[in-house]
């Protein structure tokens, strides 16, 4: 939709939505949100960007093929299931690591990576669907 107004607004909106999606992802453990919702918001961002600026712009923006992103998300999720094997625990037993960083303590944990994996899968797979649908139209 090649309208000046939309084309001008869309990139900023998309950037804002991407930011928001990461926010939703990261705080999902404590407030409503999480990888899936975050991923969907990111997809919405790409969708708006794509509708405004074209599919190829989105593809260039994502750099990697969306399905590769999805697959690496799944890999990350699978990896986050594994660490407990070295501790004689069941699969998916969560591991927590408090990392002090610039005066704040960051909780690095396997559920966090798992959630990021979910996020990537959703972003990759759903944008792949949307993009491939859009492309047929071109």
């Amino acid at each position, binding site marked *: 939709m090649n309208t000046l107004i939309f084309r001008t607004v869309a990139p900023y909106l998309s950037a804002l939505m991407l930011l928001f999606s990461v926010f939703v992802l990261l705080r999902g453990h404590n407030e*409503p949100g999480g990888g899936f919702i975050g991923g969907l918001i990111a997809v919405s961002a790409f969708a708006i960007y794509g509708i405004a600026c074209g599919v190829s712009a989105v593809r260039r923006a994502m750099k990697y093929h969306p399905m590769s992103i999805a697959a690496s998300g799944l890999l990350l999720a699978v990896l986050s299931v594994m660490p407990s094997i070295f501790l004689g625990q069941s699969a998916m037993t969560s591991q927590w690591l408090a990392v002090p960083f610039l005066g704040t303590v960051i909780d690095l944990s396997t559920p966090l990576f798992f959630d990021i994996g979910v996020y990537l899968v959703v972003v990759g797979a759903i944008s792949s*669907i949307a993009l491939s649908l859009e492309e047929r139209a071109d």
Partner: protein
Amino acid sequence: METLFSMLVGILFAGSIYLLLSRKLVRILLGIAILGNAVNLLIFTAGRLTRDVPPIIPVNNYLPLEATANPLPQALVLTAIVISFSFLAFFLVLGYRAYQELGTDDLLEMRVAEPKEHYEPPLGY
């Protein structure tokens, strides 16, 4: 409350089934979309309803201050929503491709896999 919602679920199911029984692909796709909602609402209702209180622990506590809504059905429904969304996406594209390839949106006309002219198998030896 749950009884009322059971009726709502029934209505959703009935509506989606009516759509699914249709001849038109688009209506079937709509039926699939509603079916997902129907079953999600069913799970949600089956886990009993609680007004307002989300299952989120306040920042300063280790336990919720009051009885919250049942979190497990919510998690289940979340999973189910995601799955039914994926399926819906697939079905939408499938429907689109079916229309493209088969040139019709009428299921009665989709007879490529099972053509109308049905041969008797060869008899004899």
